[in-house]
């Protein structure tokens, strides 16, 4: 089982849209896929038309088989572990337990033989929940809006994942919400491509189709297969899958 976290320190950079679309495409490839919505806002759950609610709250996840809370989506091979508004208190819950930074990993161990891939839609910030997610993940996919401030954020994240406890964790960055008409976006992308190794070749454009996901409540490929956004996510997933194969 590979655990892929969609994460950025900044909010509003397209984590949720990317998590939903990439998980969907992964599942379409015949992989048993679980999307875990750990963002208290529950947007990933909403986009899949699943209520952001865990019976008994997130506390109930501990000590029980998390499969009890898993919901089957409308798409082949794709399941969701929904968000809950109380997920905002997860930090406190984790903090009260022993091995407080390994709680997400331990919860995922119980489904390791059921899923090929787990995608985690992470909340923004640098919290205990995020530390948990990074400890559980094999790969962090981090969306980046091509702006000066985002570059600073990327530097912080790069520094953070150098922690010895996160050895082996891969950080792959892709540009998100790109507006190719804007000169700044084009310049930042060009500049970063020469300065940084490991940037994903595919990027996600700013697209009204992706925005419509929240209205139609489905992955973009379902309702706009040939749209710019749909094709961009398809390309990004192909690149991620290929890189994962190459890196074993």
């Amino acid at each position, binding site marked *: 089982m590979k655990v892929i976290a969609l994460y950025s320190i900044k909010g509003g950079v397209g984590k949720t849209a990317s998590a939903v679309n990439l998980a969907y495409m992964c599942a379409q490839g*015949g992989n048993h896929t679980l999307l875990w919505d750990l963002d208290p806002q529950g947007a990933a759950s909403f986009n*899949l*038309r699943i209520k952001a609610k865990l019976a008994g709250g997130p506390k109930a996840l501990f000590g029980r088989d998390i*499969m009890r809370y898993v919901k089957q989506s409308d798409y*082949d*091979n794709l*399941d969701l572990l929904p968000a809950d508004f109380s997920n905002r208190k997860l930090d406190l819950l984790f903090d009260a337990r022993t091995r407080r930074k390994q709680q997400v990993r331990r919860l995922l161990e119980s489904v390791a033989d*059921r899923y090929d891939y787990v995608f985690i839609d992470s909340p923004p910030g640098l919290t205990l929940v995020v530390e948990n997610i990074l400890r559980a993940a094999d790969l962090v996919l981090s969306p980046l809006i091509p702006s000066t401030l985002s570059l600073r954020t990327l530097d912080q994240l790069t520094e953070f994942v150098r922690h010895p406890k996160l050895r082996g964790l891969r950080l792959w960055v892709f540009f998100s919400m790109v507006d190719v008409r804007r000169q700044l976006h084009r310049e930042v992308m060009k500049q970063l491509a020469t300065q940084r190794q490991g940037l994903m070749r595919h990027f996600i454009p700013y697209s009204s189709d992706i925005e419509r996901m929240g209205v139609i409540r489905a992955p973009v490929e*379902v309702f706009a297969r040939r749209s710019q956004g749909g094709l961009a996510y398809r390309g990004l997933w192909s690149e991620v899958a290929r890189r994962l194969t190459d890196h074993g």
Partner: protein
Amino acid sequence: MLGHDSIALEFTCTTQPQRFGSGDGKGKLLNDTVEFILPGNVPTSEVEKFFTGQFAAARGPEYSATLRFHDTFDWRLYRAGWVLEEATRGRRGVVGCYNRRTGDHVSIPVTGRLRHLHELGGLQEERDLRGVVGLRALIAQAQLPVRVSEIKLLNDDQKTVVHCRVGQYQAPDAAEANSEFTAIRLLGLRGYTAELRIAAARIASATNTTQRECAVLHRTMEVLGQTLDEHAVKPHIRLPPSATALQWMSAICTRLVDVMVSNEAGIVQDIDTEFLHDFRVAVRRTRSALGQIRGVYKTESITRFSSEFAWLGQVTGPLRDLDVFLLHFDELRASVPVELHDGLQGFNDYLRGQRIRERRRILKHLRGERYHSLVEDWRCFLAEPGTRHRGGAAGQTVVPVAREHTLRIWRRVLKQGRCINDSSPPQALHDLRISCKKLRYMLEFFTPLQTAGNAGHLTRRLRRLQENLGDFQDCSVQIETLYNIAHQTAWDQPDTVLALGALIQQATDRGTAARQDFHRRFQSFDTRSTARLFERLFAQTQIKVA
């Protein structure tokens, strides 16, 4: 309604397997697949009305298909809790694999008709089913044409919470007035058990019917006038202990001849190798019953049958030996050095050629007058054995007769086994193996008369000994056969002879190991506790220990 992605039951867009059910089978109030059968042809629009006010219904595609239920000849999958069904339309199909025990259901798209389990695409279910099916082939046990409509039941978020499949069935040659029926199958989604329960309750209250496990399979079998017959090789006798030995013997032998006849078609069509195996086991059991349960029939009355069943065993033996070689060919191949693998191909070709010839010979026998009159005369004899054929024990109640003969063979096993030492000839082990086999058959013939639990313990202990003796015998037979084949055939490649030599060496080593293990195995059978189990086996009277 927006363009939802495919669901696995739809032929139009299915590409991936899809699982229904929670996948854990724990703590569920209701199975994740629920089936209802309604008489006649119920339109899909009527079915939609059952859910009005609770769920919105989104109609999926409609299509005509052929529904087939696949299982082994002897319904192994069903008995192990599985139902394997296939709906095909043209070259496209969906295989539904349903676990009756956990309630989980997986739908797997396939191209063309399902013939082999590997077409299930390496899923866990394939491995599970393979373990159950063993060497048996899958056959279409029942099939019906069906008109299918798919309905998705949606909640307030327009999320699918239950898949509903409406199937309208009718037997092709509908002689029976009630052959038309509608099956409603609800497939639950993980995390939506409550919705499944509500949908099932809606159907139950609207139609005044109750859900039934595997309802479609059972109704299909009814409509086709077929039964879920378990062609068990072991005879299950349902007679009271007060029955006479004659009644019991007749029931055993009738059951065995039924098994033989029921396997004929499978041998002729060459569906799998196990039809011949089961046929031969039934022949062997019949011979054993005739030879061991003495005094029920007069010896002169059954002499002809005994020799004819011996003939039947003899003529079917070579094909079985070839089947065993071919079934284990991959293991044999793996046991010799890689350099000799090519050489083994010649041996494989030889075995296949011989198998074709042997099959022809057996088919000739099975279609011949000698076999048919044996079966016919034997059935007549069993149905009404004239007074002149009845032996002295015929009128006795079965229990003392069963006890006498079972214990007699047990004592023989002990005597033969205790005489075997390191210098005993292989024939001594062979004779003991035959006696063990006879003892096993006796235990099986009279199981209903035995103390519950004892028979099982004894069978397990005996089986461990039989495995050792069987291994030794297999190796001896293999060595002799390989030696003869190596000498009697002109091989194109010298490597083939070398490979046969390597196989002989392997068989010799295995035989030696089995022989060395014999005493340990026999000693763990020849114990005071085994004796006690035999003593109490029929629990009628105490008997003297051997």
